C-alpha cells in the first residue's frame, strides 16, 4: 500500500484572495511580521499498487486530469510505502 501526498497551489503571480484575507486578519489580530500568505490543498491518497513507479505515473496522470488545473495551479507530490 502506498500513501501519496499531492500538493496543489496557485501558480506564482496568480492572485490568492483567500491568502490575502487571512494575512489581513492575522495582522488585525496582532500577529505582526506576516508578509505573505498563500493557501493550497493537500490531497492524501491511499493506493494499492504494484510498484512505486506505477504509483508515480498514476498520480502524475491524476494531477493532470483531475486534481489540478494547469491554467492557474501547479502541483507536486511525494510518495511513501505504508
Amino acid at each position, binding site marked *: 500500500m502506498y500513501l501519496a501526498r499531492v500538493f496543489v497551489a496557485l501558480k506564482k503571480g496568480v492572485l490568492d*484572495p*483567500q491568502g490575502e*484575507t*487571512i494575512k489581513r*486578519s492575522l495582522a*488585525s*489580530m496582532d500577529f505582526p511580521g506576516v508578509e505573505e500568505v498563500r*493557501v493550497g490543498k493537500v490531497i492524501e491518497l491511499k493506493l494499492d499498487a504494484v510498484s512505486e513507479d506505477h504509483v508515480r505515473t498514476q498520480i502524475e496522470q491524476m494531477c493532470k486530469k483531475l486534481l489540478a488545473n494547469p491554467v492557474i495551479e501547479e502541483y507536486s507530490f511525494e510518495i511513501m510505502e505504508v
Partner: protein
Amino acid sequence: MKFGVVVFPGSNCDADVKHVLQDVVNQDTRFVWHKDPLPRALDCVVLPGGFSYGDYLRTGAIARFSPVMEGVMEFAAQGGLVLGICNGFQVLTEAGLLPGALMVNKNLKFMCKPVYLRVEHNGTPFTNALNAGDVIEVPIAHGEGNYFADPEVLEEIERNNQVVFRYCTREGVVNAQANPNGSVNNIAGLINKEGNVLGMMPHPERCSEEVIGRVDGIKVFQSIINWWQGRK
C-alpha cells in the same frame, strides 16, 4: 423591542433581516457595524447570513474576531437573545457560543431551495409561536451547512433538548432523504444550553411575507417579540 443586525464585511442578508424586522413586524431595528462596539440598549442581536470575509479559510472563522463580537459574547453571557442565521450560525459555532461546526455540504454544492423543518420544541424564545412537531417550510441557501459535532457533544446536545429544528419530509419524518446537506441527526437549528442563543441554517427572513411566496418564517420573529413582551 430593539434589534441590532450586525454587519460584517461580506454580510449580505443584513438588509433582508432588517426589512422584515422593521417593515413587517414593525420593530425598532438598526445595523451594527462590525468594528463598532455593540450598542447598550439592544434586546436582541441578529447575526445575518452572507459570506463574511468571503467565507475564506472557514465560514465564520474570521468574522468571529471582529471587534463587535466581544460585545456579542458579553451580551449572550448576560442572557441577551442572539439569533444567528446561516453565516450567523457559522460565526456562532466558530465563536464557541454554540457547540459543533458547520462543514461543506455533503454534495459539495451550494444549495438554494425550500426545505421542511420539524420544530423540536417550542419552549424557546425563538419558537414559542410554533408548536412542537409543527412542520414549517423555510428556504436554505448555503454551501456549508453540514452540521457536525463529536459523538459525546452530540449526545449532550440531544440530552439537553438543544436541537430546535430538524430537516424533515413534508409529513414531518426525519430521515436521510430529507437531509439536504449531511448534517448529523438532521440538525438545522440549535440553541445553547442556557436557551438564549439560537443558530439556524435556514432563512426565516426569506419566508416572512406573502408576496415572496412563503410565510412560515415570521413565526420565529413573532416568537422573539412574544417572549420579550411576556418578560416585561
